[in-house]
């Protein structure tokens, strides 16, 4: 198993490089290439601003160099291991450094700062969502498998497929429209993660002479209810269907017959024997769930106005902030690859039957 994990870690490197190539190729092959925003705004810029941007691009990509050289120059800037750059632009010593994701030319801020603000929010959304998805999906899947072929099972199958097909943006828009808008029930907040007054709130909820103060924590929880619900249901439906299939597949196997022949109660057979084995495909698809969740966060963050990576990327694309889109794709791709690696290793740990060749 150790060899498998080492092998997997080594294969992580080419995948990471491949991802950077895909992202860089998108920029380099697009109309105008790496320096396109120079061309696009040539007329409207005063010479000094133009010079500054040109200097920025030249430092970052070396616009006069051929594409492969531009790629390696950019890769050196964004990677945490590489050549330091001296003040005069010449190459310094090789070592660990702070990755430089460039600067947003629209927001006039270093992109790494923007990512530092936004990434934790997206990760928080996912960290809350994943356990909820798995718990509900497992319970629902077992229930459906227990009642195989009965009305409850077939009904649930169709409902799950329906949920899986239900567009997240429709769910988000309906949730905001009917549950949070002023025209209908104003139960939930519509926007953001915090109330405007949350800065002056105590951390925990409390009863004050003025009235009930929800506190910073509860306020955020209340803001998170609708986004998390909208983020959950698609993956939940997918996993519940999978769990049901895995349970049924295992129930037909010999070891279940043996367990039943021993006289074990049905409950023990299902929960102790079948259940454990049926979890393996769920761990496998964690690989596919994570990128899907990151993608879903794009929609949900945009609808609910949460300042995470998804909203940052969409806003950047809408404002033609090319540098920011490029770096966001890079960061999210990196998160995706790491999630991939973790899920792969978890899979090996969970199922000792996996071949390590």
């Amino acid at each position, binding site marked *: 198993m150790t060899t498998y994990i080492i092998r997997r870690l080594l294969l992580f490197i080419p995948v990471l490089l491949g991802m950077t190539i895909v992202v860089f190729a998108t920029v380099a092959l*697009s109309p105008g290439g790496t320096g396109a925003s120079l061309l696009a705004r040539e007329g409207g810029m005063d010479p000094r601003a133009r010079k500054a941007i040109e200097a920025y691009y030249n430092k970052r990509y070396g616009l006069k160099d051929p594409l492969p050289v531009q790629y390696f120059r950019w890769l050196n800037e964004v990677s945490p291991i590489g050549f330091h750059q001296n003040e005069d632009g010449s190459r310094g010593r090789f070592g660990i450094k702070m990755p430089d994701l460039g600067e947003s030319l629209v927001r006039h801020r270093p992109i790494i700062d923007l990512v530092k603000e936004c990434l934790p929010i997206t990760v928080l959304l996912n960290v809350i969502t994943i356990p909820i998805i798995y718990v509900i999906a497992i319970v629902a899947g077992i229930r459906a498998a227990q009642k195989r072929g009965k009305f409850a099972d077939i009904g649930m199958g169709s409902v799950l497929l329906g949920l899986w097909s239900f567009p997240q943006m429709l769910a988000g828009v309906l949730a905001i429209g009917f549950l949070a808008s002023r025209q209908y029930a104003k139960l939930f907040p519509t926007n953001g993660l915090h109330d405007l007054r949350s800065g002056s709130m105590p951390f925990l909820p409390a009863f004050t002479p003025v009235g009930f103060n929800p506190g910073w924590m509860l306020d955020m929880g209340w803001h998170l209810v609708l986004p998390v619900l909208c983020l959950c249901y698609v993956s939940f439906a997918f996993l519940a269907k999978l769990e049901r299939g895995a349970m049924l597949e295992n129930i037909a196997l010999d070891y279940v017959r043996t367990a039943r022949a021993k006289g074990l109660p049905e409950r023990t057979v299902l929960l102790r024997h079948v259940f454990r084995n049926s979890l393996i495909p769920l761990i496998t698809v964690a690989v596919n769930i994570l990128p899907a969740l990151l993608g879903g966060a794009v929609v949900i963050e945009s609808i609910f106005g949460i300042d995470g990576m998804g909203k940052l990327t969409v806003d950047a694309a809408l404002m033609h902030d090319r540098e920011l*889109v490029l770096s966001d794709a890079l960061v999210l791709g990196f998160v995706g690859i790491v999630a991939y690696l973790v899920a792969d290793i978890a899979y090996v740990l969970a199922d000792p039957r996996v071949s390590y060749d």
Partner: protein
Amino acid sequence: MTNAAMAGSLAAMPGEAPRPEPAPSPRGLARRAVDDTLASWRTKTGLAWIAIVAFCAVFAPFLANSYPLAVKMNGNWSSPAIKHLTPVDWTLLVVAFCGVITLGLSRLTFFRKLLVLLLILAVELPLAFLFVHPPIVDVFQEYRDLQRQGRLQAVIGCPIPYSPTDRLRDHPDARLTPPSREHLFGVDMNGSDVLSAMIHACRIAMAIGFISTGIAVVIGVVIGGLMGYFVGWVDLFGMRFIEVFEAIPTLILLITFVAFFGHNLYLMMAIIGLTGWTGNARFIRAEYLRLRNQDFVQATIAAGLPLRSILFRHMLPNGVSPVIVSATFGIASAILFESTLSFLGLGLIDEPSWGQMLNQAAGVSGTFTWWMAVFPGLGIFLTVFAYNLIGEALRDALDPRLHGIE
């Protein structure tokens, strides 16, 4: 109890020799899978909805159009609707017409039919752009005004007498009105009829699903086929290539592409195809790994057939079934991706699309217009659901374990 049931219970009576079951007529797995799929209620429901969407897509200019189907003016009949058909409208109508005829011909194989249709499309499209020149300026209220002035002797209007881009300049107070008898699904904030825009948006939904999935299947089959056939270095390299594309969230990759390449429907199709091939490649690879050691493949190699022939003529028909299932789900997810992009404001600007309409539901002013959310949203949901239903039925039909074969 019916006769058949009585006969059945009699046959099962103890002591009596069980009558031999009539042997089922020999059907191949493919034939049986198609039959089973078509027999399932899921497929019927799904196909019914897709047929409605396809009908709307082809006949959109005759279903919802500000120009009447026929008018009688100064004693002469004319058809403003036909006069205003664009080259794309003509192409769709001709190809759909030929499609129905070709599918009716049972002599040809499915592949040949597809080839014939593509040929017709290739001939039709340039001809349509050469010879069809609709008026450049659209004056949607032209015939409404003429009718109001009483200058038309007879008018046969479309079922929904509004074009999707008709902003109802002659009725500025109609903006954002809820569903009424005149506008069944309401009016959006620009003054366009929602039902009309939804009917015209069926085109994007149909096109994006089929074309992008077509691209994804072709890329997936070629790369997956090469990986499964050659194994070794090709396989190792291909697998990393797949992982690269799977690790970047597809939506982010799509947004990146759109941000750098611009808003363009054909590009969007190509990009959804370029990012969606990995699942197909994995399936084909797994099938080819299984097939490559079988006798018939060894025989084709021994016979000295070219690689193209081995891979696609002999191995592909034996390994294609998981790809068919995943392609059906792929169509559903392509439609979802397009509507998500349009919803985020990164889709087409001048063409109506369900996602873009949904975006207008929660307006800038903070008001919620439920008819802009519910109707286009249901359009997306039902179409995606229909494809997923068919996909599930197909998967069940192609799963040999459910037939007790193994």
